[in-house]
């Protein structure tokens, strides 16, 4: 759907940034690496012609959620915990488990599937990711779902305020 060079550049950036999040020692650098991952994923959405989701990705993830994370890190004044240090049995088991999940996912991909993929032209793809198309579906067919999502966000806001006041011993 887009030039392969752009996609592979952004994909490499996303992978490097997420590995950076994994190995970073301080939570602040982890958060900043994750912001870079979010930005490159947003670029990948743009190469897919999903413009609306690409913008929402930056607004909500990089703009709101990651700022929330950074605020909490700042509030709690954390020192870096020792991590990935001693290699005990749990860590090795976890690594094997992760590699097994990846191998399983890539094996299914390598098998190839027999999906009836419609021949989508770039113009159709651009229309499919457009804010107008998504908005029309969201406010007609999915209006009830949208209302429920709004109630969920309200409940989460109230719940977060109530929980943050509490003190667990």
């Amino acid at each position: 759907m887009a030039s392969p060079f752009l996609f592979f550049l952004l994909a490499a950036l996303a992978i490097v940034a997420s590995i950076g999040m994994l190995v970073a020692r301080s939570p602040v650098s982890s958060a900043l690496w994750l912001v870079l991952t979010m930005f490159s994923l947003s670029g990948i959405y743009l190469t897919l012609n999903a413009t609306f989701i690409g913008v929402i990705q930056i607004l909500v993830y990089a703009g709101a959620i990651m700022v929330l994370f950074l605020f909490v890190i700042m509030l709690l004044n954390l020192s870096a915990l020792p991590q990935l240090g001693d290699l005990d049995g749990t860590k090795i088991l976890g690594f094997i488990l992760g590699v097994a999940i990846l191998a399983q996912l890539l094996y299914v991909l390598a098998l190839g599937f027999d999906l009836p993929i419609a021949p989508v032209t770039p113009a159709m793809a651009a229309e499919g990711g457009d804010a107008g198309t998504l908005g029309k579906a969201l406010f007609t067919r999915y209006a009830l779902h949208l209302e429920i999502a709004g109630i969920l966000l309200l409940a989460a806001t109230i719940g977060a305020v109530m929980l943050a006041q509490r003190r667990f011993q």
Partner: protein
Amino acid sequence: MEVALNWYLALGALLFTIGTLGVLFKRNAIVLLMSIELMLNAVNLTLVAFSQFMGDADGQILVLFSIAVAAAEAAVGLAIVIAIFRGKSTVDITEINLFKH
């Protein structure tokens, strides 16, 4: 030349695995929540790729709802972390054992 669907799915699989490793390895509860966000993002990428390659916008609607749920999850999760930190002064998940006693 265009990028095939499989490359997008492979990237999603890789990011999901990195997120899983983050959940398994990290001891900081906040970084754990960030790894979960990464896993959600990988699934979103898969959904958007399928949606665009099959010419069906419903996948992207699902991604919008998934982003809303991720925002709610992050808010509640971080509130729980703050509440635990106020009582125990740590976010190390190996030391958080409220249900043990």
